[in-house]
């Protein structure tokens, strides 16, 4: 159980630097404009550290590296234990990139009360990276809940007119799930005598259905999976655009990551022939995901506004990712990880673009938009490129991911793959509807003649995200070969529970 790699100070830095940044912003009375710049510098430094961590990462077999461990309280066996696995490091990368873009966008828009705002954004960054890095269940829970605090403030203070109900719904839904997870964590940790995930894995994980249900409740609400998505449309509509992007792009991935890492590693003696909680609940979860996939796609097709389309497509995509995870084989896992990164980038870009459009037209209603492409080539190109990748056109990174997911689930049962394939057709329908309603057709009543094209600042925020997507389209194996690789047999440190 010794960490195979050197002391992971870089993981500590990745988690703690944004928290430090948040404190710096809250305590030092920065002038208005400077606060955002300071936050942006912190988030860019964060990307730098992530690249350094990636450069250092030993991608051989399924492994955990860059770990750092410090006892937090001994008597119950809780420790500050952070590190990255092959796949979680990509999700951390997604988080830092999207957060940096969101912070840059907020700076560009000039949010009111900047110190409070940017401090919360940095706190959120640290919490999300912490969720992906935590190797101790209680620490995982701490970061999981810590995400909620800044999100509550960000939506509640800076959100739209309906923010009050939206935040209340969001918090009640998520806390109901999280508290069940806390109960599971307490019971699991005390039964095993440790809260350390790797040690629990070393002791063979758990075979309790109830405990798995506690975790699954938290993940299913946060993702969200059908029918627990009641909070989603309100929260995504009322949040500031960049916060909605973070919510659907990154925070939802914390849930799918939870399904993958905690759900399957601890509770899934899958493919070992033994029955396991995750295995027993595999069919119900797949059914909910399949329903969510089709239902979300249909709602996205019928949604009256830009954010509605992106929000419901997010429901569909997260369901697809969950299907990939519960395929429980290498291609399903790889596809799910790649799609998490893809969808995170796509969704963040689309929400930022939605915000950009709303700033020009003061509405997101599709029937009042239209004709924005004319004379605005940059906006048209960026939205088109993102939309095309989102609908998984062959050659795009989303295509690669969805192909892997479908291939993975096909080996489990071809029926699931058919549902997935239908949903991909639906994705094309809602994305093309969105593109044409915003960019093409006649000029909408809400579009002022003087509405400007993307300005340099906006391009500087959105283009890097699209560039990441294009890079992944060219080389999806950059992630898939390094996430779960080609087989899981090479796992180390008790990680081979997943061996097929």
């Amino acid at each position: 159980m010794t960490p195979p790699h050197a002391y992971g100070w870089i993981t500590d830095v990745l988690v703690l630097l944004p928290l430090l940044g948040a404190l710096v912003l809250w305590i030092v009375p920065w002038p208005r404009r400077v606060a955002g710049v300071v936050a942006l510098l912190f988030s860019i430094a964060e990307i730098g550290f992530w690249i350094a961590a990636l450069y250092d990462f030993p991608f051989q077999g399924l492994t955990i590296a860059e770990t750092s461990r410090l006892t937090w309280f001994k008597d119950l066996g809780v420790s500050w234990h952070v590190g990255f696995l092959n796949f979680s490091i990509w999700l951390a990368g997604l988080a830092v990139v999207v957060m940096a873009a969101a912070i840059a966008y907020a700076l560009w828009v000039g949010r009111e009360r900047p110190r409070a705002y940017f401090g919360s954004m940095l706190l959120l960054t640290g919490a999300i990276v912490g969720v992906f890095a935590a190797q101790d269940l209680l620490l995982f829970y701490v970061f999981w809940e810590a995400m909620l605090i800044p999100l509550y403030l960000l939506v509640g203070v800076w959100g739209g007119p309906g923010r009050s109900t939206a935040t209340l719904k969001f918090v009640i839904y998520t806390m109901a799930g999280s508290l069940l997870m806390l109960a599971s964590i307490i019971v699991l940790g005390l039964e095993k005598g440790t809260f350390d995930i790797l040690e629990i894995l070393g002791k063979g994980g758990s075979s309790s259905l109830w405990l798995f249900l506690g975790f699954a409740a938290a993940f299913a609400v946060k993702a969200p999976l059908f029918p627990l998505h009641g909070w989603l449309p309100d929260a995504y509509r009322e949040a500031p655009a960049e916060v909605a992007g973070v919510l659907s792009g990154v925070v939802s991935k914390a849930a799918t990551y939870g399904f993958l890492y905690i759900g399957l590693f601890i509770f899934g003696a899958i493919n070992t022939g033994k029955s396991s909680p995750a295995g027993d609940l595999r069919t119900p979860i797949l059914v909910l995901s399949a329903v969510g996939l089709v239902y979300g796609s249909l709602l996205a097709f019928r949604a009256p506004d830009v954010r509605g389309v992106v929000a419901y497509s997010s429901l569909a995509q997260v369901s697809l990712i969950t299907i990939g995870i519960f395929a429980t084989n290498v291609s399903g896992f790889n596809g799910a990880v790649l799609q998490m990164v893809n969808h995170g980038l796509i969704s963040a870009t689309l929400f930022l673009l939605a915000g950009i459009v709303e700033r020009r037209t003061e509405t997101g209603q599709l029937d009042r938009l239209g004709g924005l492409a004319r004379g605005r080539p940059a906006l048209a190109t960026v939205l088109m490129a993102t939309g095309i990748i989102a609908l998984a056109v062959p050659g795009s990174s989303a295509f690669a991911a969805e192909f892997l997911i479908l291939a993975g689930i096909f080996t489990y049962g071809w029926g699931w793959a058919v549902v997935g394939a239908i949903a991909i057709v639906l994705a094309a329908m809602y994305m093309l509807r969105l593109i044409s309603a915003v960019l093409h057709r006649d000029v909408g009543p809400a579009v002022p003649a003087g509405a400007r094209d993307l300005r340099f600042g906006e391009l500087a925020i959105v283009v890097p995200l699209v560039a990441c997507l294009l890079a992944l389209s060219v080389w999806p194996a950059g992630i898939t070969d390094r996430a779960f690789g080609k087989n899981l047999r090479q796992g180390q440190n008790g990680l081979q529970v997943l061996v097929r």
Partner: protein
Amino acid sequence: MIASIATPHVDWFALSPSLALLGSAGVSLLAAVLVPRTGRRAFSAWVCALGYAGAFVAAALLYDRSGHGTAVIAEAMRRDRWAALSAIVVAGAGLLAVGVSYNQRIRVTHVAEYYSLLAAAGAGMVFLAAANNLMVLFLSLEWFSICLYILCAIDYELVGALEAGLKYLVVGGFGSAFLLFGSALVYGATGELQFDRIAAATSAQGLTGDTLLIIGLALMLAGLGYKASAAPFHMWTPDVYEGAPTPVTAFMSAATKTVALILTLRVLTTAFPREAHLWAPAIGAIAIASLVLGNLAALTQKSVKRMLAYSSISHAGFMLIAVAANNAIGGRALLYYLIPYSAMSLGSFAVVAARERELRQPVTFDNIAGLGWERPVFGVAMTTFMLGFAGMPLTGGFTGKFYVFAAAWDRRWIWLVIVGIAATAVSLYYYLGVIRAMFMRLPAELQLAPSGGQPPRELALGAAVIGALAVTVGSFFGVQPLIDLARHAVSSSLSL
């Protein structure tokens, strides 16, 4: 012939926290006559603060030098770490309460008495935590209760203060009567006053299940429940908390609850270990009643003080879960939980006090609107306290709840964990309601008249709030040292 009465050996050191506070109470009281009006407020406040600081230091030394718990002064008191640690909490709470009180508009003719009573109440509480027989238990309970009755009503021009004082007096007297009657029955059954001898007599005389003993135990539990404001003995809490001057409420909510719970666990585990099969489920039931009632009632409150009062009832429930668990983790959990809880409770009432002084009217969810932006330090602090009450991470409230639930699970009482978790979920609504009011609504939206002018400068109160904030957040990061303190306190004092 004076020497004919055998006096017991007095361990002055064991009494030192109480003595420091009593000394400062005496000096403050003298200030009412000897110090001129202009300097009286500052003088008596400083003396009271010094008394609490002295008690804090003395209790810390006592903790350090009482590795093995012993009975002292004719075995009437215990000198152990359990008592010392609770004395530390009480002294810390008292110190912060002095800060909160400093700018309170108390009539100058009463200000010296106010601080004198504040110190005397603390002395009684510290004494109670060390009680080792039923007599000391009752005397010290009355000692601090009488101080608090007066403190509640001392500002008799405040609307509701007299009512609060009277209600507390009557209901508190009721609780004391229960306790006294229970003690008498227990004494009648066992013929012993001292806690450990009650236990010994119970097993030696085969009194387990004795009707008299059990009725006595039940009555004692009711009496202690009054002081801990646990349901169904909570009726006085909202009115008294709302009516009393806010600094007094702040002190009561933190310190009274601390000693009441500390003593409950001590009495139950040392005097009635053989009745655990009876009192543990009973305490569990009281805990559940408190959680359900406190949380549901808090949902509908408009006044922030009343909401906090119901929240304190629900927290009594959480802490009683730890008592009901009746195991070592439970003891640790209780002592640990009390530290951030006291800080959060004191801190939140302090913020309410600041708002009250600014607006000159009771603080409601409506008129606290915009506080977060107007006074960011108080806003951030209050947010932290509310998140802490709700058991969110980055505050000691989270680790406290975690330990409490761990204790219940360690006993395999999953039903207590489930009720606790459901209560936490419900409580989010009203705790977040405060945050929503402070940050997400502006006074302009609510059409409130601006109070006008600069808010008064509140250096002492600000220091108290920041102190409470530091404890709330610090107890999350410093779990290990605090838990070590609590573990030694349990192992040196109780047989869990």
